[in-house]
């Protein structure tokens, strides 16, 4: 066994997720799409706003620090 469940598989993480989704190809496709949307939502709503001030791309003021 590797570090993660899909590590031992032959088609990687995304293949592992695909094989574990229920239903036929269409159902899998719809669920995949929902998962992608959910991940993007979490990134835009929580992860990026948290990460942004830590990155030096958007400081506009002059200051002493």
């Amino acid at each position, binding site marked *: 066994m590797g570090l993660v469940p899909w590590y*031992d598989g032959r088609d*990687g993480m995304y293949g592992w997720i695909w094989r574990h989704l229920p239903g036929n190809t269409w159902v899998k496709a719809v669920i995949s799409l929902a998962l992608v949307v959910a991940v993007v939502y979490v*990134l835009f709503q929580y992860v990026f706003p948290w990460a942004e001030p830590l990155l030096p791309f*958007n400081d506009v003021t002059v*200051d*002493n620090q």
Partner: protein
Amino acid sequence: MAATTDTEHEEHTGTASRPPAVRRRPGPIARAVSFFGELLITAGLVLGLFVVYSLWWTNVVADRAAGRQADQVRDDWAHGRGGPGALDTKNGIGFLHVPAMSGSEVLVEKGTSNKILNDGVAGYYTDPVKATLPMSGKPGNFSLAAHRDGHGAKFHNIDKIEKGDPIIFETKDKWYVYKTYAILPETSKFNVKVLSNVPKESGRKKPGHYITLTTCTPVYTSTYRYVVWGELERVEKVDENRTPPKELG
């Protein structure tokens, strides 16, 4: 998707050497490499999304917030709330109009923290050098900051401002018409002297009514700061139709 491609691939190559039904398990190195490769692909997608977030989504959110707050200020003015008597600094003190930079107005609020500026507004400095508000009538420097990219990108086209261009600040009952007289296209982010009451780097030595716009430069980074200075030319009273001064006509 990957699985289908793999099977096809195996059918093509596998017929000669071994039966197509046999699924060979990849060795540990192959597995480690593919695991690492997948992580890289994922990281690439996340970074790509971060760019989309920074340059597009933050603008959507900021413009929405700025629009809401600007409506609130206009509404307060129309109903006689706020104004010089009861200066409400929380919702914004007025609007900045710089025709050379942008066709739209920029709401001005107190403070230059990310929390303020991320709402797609310009903020006047309270730290490290306190801005002198034009409404006070005292000589000093009305120093402002706003984002160059993302979060409304209100000062994105600051480099389009040239000497002589008007910078107009609108309050409830006055138009403050400034004229650009000096530009500093690149300075250190630690150069707080640009905010001084008498900004010597701009060439002025005597106290006066100045305005200073600061943002980051070059675009998409914040290595340096871009500074534009203006000096008050005249003050106009706002009439009942809020007719803008001729510079905005």
